[in-house]
């Protein structure tokens, strides 16, 4: 009789141990999952609209060739191909960077206190004739911290024989 009771107690202890083990594994898994939320990379329509509108911006750069204030997407092409100086003395690449930074600073507030922690705008030239995967960098502007979670989109500027692709990321 005592032997039978002892066996029953052992089985109950075994069952409780299994339940405790399962609960511990579950709690550890939950803890890891909540601490490291899955990186999310979303395509953002508003970022595409931002890039498209920004490319229409008339800049302060006047190139002596035609004496007209050049539009931002033409200035980016100029920066990639020739990098002439504007009448103000700045190079076209410096002017691109200055204009882009001014637009970005007036559009998105980024930092530890804001919902977006940082941004990254990158322009690369890709030659259509070659099968290159890594483009030739035209400019890179970044601010704040960028992790794996971000909203992003791309804008494409044709530049024969290839194209300049501008990738924008807003990091959460």
């Amino acid at each position, binding site marked *: 009789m005592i032997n039978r009771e002892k066996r029953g107690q052992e089985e109950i202890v075994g069952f409780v141990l299994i339940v405790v083990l399962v609960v511990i594994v579950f709690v550890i898994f939950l803890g890891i999952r909540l601490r490291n939320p899955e990186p999310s990379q979303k395509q953002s329509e508003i970022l595409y*609209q931002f890039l498209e509108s*920004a490319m229409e911006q008339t800049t302060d750069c006047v190139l002596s060739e035609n004496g007209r204030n050049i539009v931002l997407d033409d200035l980016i092409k100029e920066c990639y191909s020739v990098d002439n100086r504007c009448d103000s003395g700045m190079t076209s690449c410096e002017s691109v960077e200055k204009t882009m930074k001014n637009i970005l600073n007036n559009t998105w507030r980024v930092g530890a206190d804001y919902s977006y922690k940082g941004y990254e705008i990158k322009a690369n030239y890709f030659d259509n004739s070659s099968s290159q995967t890594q483009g030739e960098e035209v400019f890179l502007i970044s601010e704040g911290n960028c992790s794996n979670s971000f909203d992003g989109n791309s804008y494409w500027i044709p530049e024969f024989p290839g194209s300049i692709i501008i990738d924008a990321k807003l990091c959460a």
Partner: protein
Amino acid sequence: MMDLHHVKYSKGQFKIQQMVFVLVAIIILFGIVSIFFVSIRFGSLRSEVDDQRKEAVFEQVRKMAGTPEFIWTSSSDCSACVDMDKLLLLKNRTSYKGFWKDISLLKVSRVYPKYQTEECNLNSYPECNSITLVKGDDISAYESFVSLCRYDGDIGQTRCEMGKIIMGFEGVG
């Protein structure tokens, strides 16, 4: 009559009972875990649907830039360019009162560069930031980026600047 206190259960019956308890406990445990996962999954699904709805609204707001009252018509192809001169004149037109039905707020605002004067009028234009066509209270507003274009006499050419269209609707959350 049978005395229930003295019914003898076999060892096999105990074993079956024990197994049933264990199975029920396991099923309850897995049930709780799966309910938890389903609730997390549906939570993220709901936020994805909300995001997609918002994106659709942003697109609709931007389409306003393509209407005849707003669009900048020039040789270059620009579907999201707004004619600021046209809007300034439209602002004071009494015939356009009540034209945009169900819209509580309709405004275009310059993002860059910013000037000191906020609202544009015939005296402050073009060195001002926004033109409000419809102004109402208690609204949910949505914004879309556009280019604000005008003829700039100082440089003798078209000048386009970064801006946004802001539209508000009553009772839309």
